[in-house]
């Protein structure tokens, strides 16, 4: 009996091989004509700003907030799935617990909402 995950690995390998081949081959297949402007960052024709964006680029805090919220809810889902699978067996206890769980997340959610964490102005 084969490991049930083998097909996934094969799929991964095939897709990876294909993608890697593409990115590796690309420079060799295409032409190469040096032009300094071409290698600058694209900023709509403006001279690119001198500071490097990599590492130092700063972004609105809201993105961090979204990332944190995502983590919160993603983890919530991690708990909802096992419950969902065995919901019928858990009966009233499981139901009450999961309702409490969702409510707890809901409190945090309401807090974030009310305090403007979800606003993009």
């Amino acid at each position, binding site marked *: 009996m084969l490991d049930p995950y083998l097909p996934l690995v094969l799929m991964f390998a095939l897709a990876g091989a294909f993608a890697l081949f593409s990115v590796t081959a690309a420079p060799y297949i295409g032409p190469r004509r040096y032009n300094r402007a071409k290698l600058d960052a694209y900023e709509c024709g403006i001279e690119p700003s001198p500071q490097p964006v990599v590492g130092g680029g700063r972004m609105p*805090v809201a993105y961090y907030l979204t*990332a*944190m919220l995502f*983590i*919160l809810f*993603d*983890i919530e889902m991690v*708990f909802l799935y*096992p419950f969902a699978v065995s919901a019928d067996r858990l009966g009233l206890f499981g139901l009450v617990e999961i309702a409490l769980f969702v409510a707890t997340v809901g409190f945090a959610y309401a807090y974030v909402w009310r305090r403007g964490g979800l606003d993009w102005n």
Partner: protein
Amino acid sequence: MTPTYYLLLSALLFSLGAVGVLVRRNAIVVFMCVELMLNAVNLSLVTFARINGALDGQVMAFFVMVVAAAEVVVGLTIIMAIFKTRRSASVDDSNLLKY
């Protein structure tokens, strides 16, 4: 594959994380090293669950993930706050507190 290899891998990852925490200077990198440690533990937990033929290790991994997530949220907040002020996330730049 014997589970021992997973345990060794987990130990290795944990050590890497620990060393990273000790030698790296960027707060965010340090923080990611801590997360690496937590995930190394997850690997251990799941492997042990497999060895013991029980589910609870995997359930624990869930809890660890939750904790890791909460840590990420809190940690990012704190690090961002100080980063905003100092424009540097280097641990060495935080040197106001010493005797």
